[in-house]
């Protein structure tokens, strides 16, 4: 029981964090057809900007300023880099973001070094939320989840109930048509790209405190965010939310489970045989937990490329 509750709580919060990063990514893909390899870099930059700003001004201005800075970085990348290579096709756009991923990581190493920086929980948030099974549950974890929920509510309202949101949703669906109706679609692209970068930056600012802020954080999150976006359905924000929670909860449970493939064969009476064979059949789920999301991603890509909630392929 203790394992279930704590894992569920941690999983949901990790999932919400994944959602903050993947929401922008999936919107950008739906709109521009570009899978942005540098998106996780925005998350990393958010953490480092948050760290530096919070050392100067304290945590609260940092949580506001870091995403704004990231929006500027995102806008620059879209306006002066992506838009330039757009005419060479999607492959070149993909390659550009791929190169930017390297540059951002190296720049961070240049300024902050190779090791994690001491980005600490602000004092006013550093207390125990509640006591569960004799375990003090830190409030800051809940805070990460809270920020994500507020962010989801904000973009949901923005996309569903405002005129700008209507244009964005239409531009995701049929960019040429929206352009034909006289809207400035490049400007919409710029706005969405900047917004997506800001959201990833916000995620980094908040989560960098909990998960160490280090130059490898973009790599660590980068591919798992792709998994979320694919499983949820490329272009679908709601899908990204569902997939984030699924993957978050799964990852959190899997590290504590020692199920094996051999045990799964018990109902058909092959457990003994499988255990004798050994190898991959007796590997514990906990040890291969890292591989399972990619397996799910592969299955989704092959069986239902539109993802859980996506509409188009």
């Amino acid at each position: 029981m203790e394992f279930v509750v704590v894992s569920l709580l941690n999983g949901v919060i990790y999932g919400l964090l994944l959602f903050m990063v993947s929401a922008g990514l999936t919107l950008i893909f739906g709109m521009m057809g570009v899978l942005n390899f540098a998106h996780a870099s925005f998350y990393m930059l958010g953490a480092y900007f948050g760290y530096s700003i919070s050392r100067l001004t304290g945590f609260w201005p940092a949580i506001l300023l870091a995403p704004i800075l990231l929006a500027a970085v995102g806008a620059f990348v879209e306006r002066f880099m992506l838009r330039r290579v757009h005419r060479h096709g999607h492959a070149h756009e993909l390659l550009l973001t791929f190169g930017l991923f390297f540059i951002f990581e190296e720049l961070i190493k240049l300024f902050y070094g190779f090791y994690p920086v001491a980005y600490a929980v602000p004092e006013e948030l550093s207390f125990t939320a509640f006591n569960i099974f004799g375990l003090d549950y830190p409030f800051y974890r809940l805070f990460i989840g809270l920020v994500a929920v507020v962010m989801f509510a904000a973009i949901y309202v923005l996309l569903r109930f405002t005129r700008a949101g209507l244009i964005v949703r239409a531009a995701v669906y049929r960019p040429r048509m929206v352009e034909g109706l006289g809207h400035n679609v490049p400007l919409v692209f710029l706005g969405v790209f900047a917004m997506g970068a800001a959201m990833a930056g916000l995620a980094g600012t908040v989560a960098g405190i909990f998960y160490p802020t280090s130059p490898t954080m973009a790599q660590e999150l980068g591919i798992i965010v792709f998994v979320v976006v694919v499983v949820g359905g490329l272009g679908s924000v709601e899908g990204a939310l569902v997939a984030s929670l699924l993957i978050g909860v799964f990852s959190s449970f899997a590290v504590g489970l020692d199920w094996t493939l051999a045990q799964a064969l018990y109902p058909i009476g092959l457990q003994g045989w499988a255990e004798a064979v050994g190898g991959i059949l007796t590997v514990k789920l906990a040890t291969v937990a890292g591989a399972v999301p990619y397996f799910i991603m592969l299955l989704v890509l092959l069986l239902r490329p539109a993802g859980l909630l996506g509409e188009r392929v």
Partner: protein
Amino acid sequence: MSGLSETEADVSRPSLFDRFGFATAAILAAIIVLIVLPLVLNDRYIGTLIKMLAASLFALAFNILWRQTKLLSFGHAAYFGLGMFAVVHLMRAIEAGSISLPLPLVPLAGLGAGLAFGWIAGFFATIRTGTYFAMVTLAIAELIHQLAPQWEGVFGGEAGLSSMRMPWASVTFGSDIEVYYLVLAWFILAVAAMYVFTMTPLGRLAFALGDNELRVRFLGYDTHALKTRVFAVSGMFAGLAGGLLALANENVDHTIFNAFVSGSAVIHTFVGGAGVFLGPIVGAFALTLFGFVVSDATRLWALYQGIIFVLVVMYAPQGVGGAIIDHVEPWRQGKLRSLVGPYLLGLIAALTLASGTVFLFEYLARLFSDPYGIQAASTKALPVVELFSITWPHASPTTWMVPVALFAVGLLLLRTAIGRIRKAWESIKTSSLGAEE
């Protein structure tokens, strides 16, 4: 008048032999250089040469899929890595005496592993196209990357696997140079095979698939089966490339499945020129050499490589190879002379800007390094930075004037150079148009 008719004959009939002769001469020269080079080089460089050859083959294998079929794979490390593991396993078996096989044939294990796994993975990956295809290849590679460290029997766990090259005939393969010539022989064979592949029916169909898959299907072909085969061929050569590297390194571990290894093939290919058959070799050689030389001098070499890659993607999407091809025709017509001046100016501008960039980043790297921080904290002041054996005081205006001046002059020169280069090209194009009329 006679001069005009001469150029006319030259332009209207660029004889096949002429063109072919140029390419053959260049390739023969390159092969001779590759044969002679290790004789004059230090042993340290021979290892790098082997890495270059393996990286070139790897990039070429990746580019079979991209140049011909327009499928962008982000997971070729899987086939490269499996090729490495297959070769190390075979070498261990030979070492233990359970199999006997001449060492020069050992890379065939990598080839076989790449082919077999490429066939399976290709069957699934080519169900999808475009971004979805890239995602499938990424997922397959990442799956192996995650599973490999857990599966100790096959991948040797965290420590990886190692083995020894066994002597064959009278050759011990104990020295680097012997291994180099073996790798070079395989390299030449494989590049030739890949070139021949582009002319086989499957190779031609692969181009057609890249141009318009629907039409190929209308012609009655099973396009999925075709793409699976092309993918398998690409995986096969990637496996061979890995096998050659494993033969030289004598060890391998699971980190070879890292997404960055897949990325290196992509970067090499596009910097070298994805649209040209030999382009990936140019990219792989240039960037491996760059990494080798520059990583000795500065720890920022990966940053510089990233900047070079982004600049190529933005401003020279055809890569180095594409740029060379653009100059072949004017060169044959003897029209490149007008470009020499503008290009020299452009080179000076680029070097000026590059030195400004390097100065800036190296300076910042010193300023933000840990030893500097400790020194500053202990002396409670900002110590001077030493760079290029000169000390640069922070407050001094000269310190900041250097990069600013380099950037300003560089940008100014670049603007002039771009204008002149454009003008020279325009006159080349109009003059060849006139000749055609």
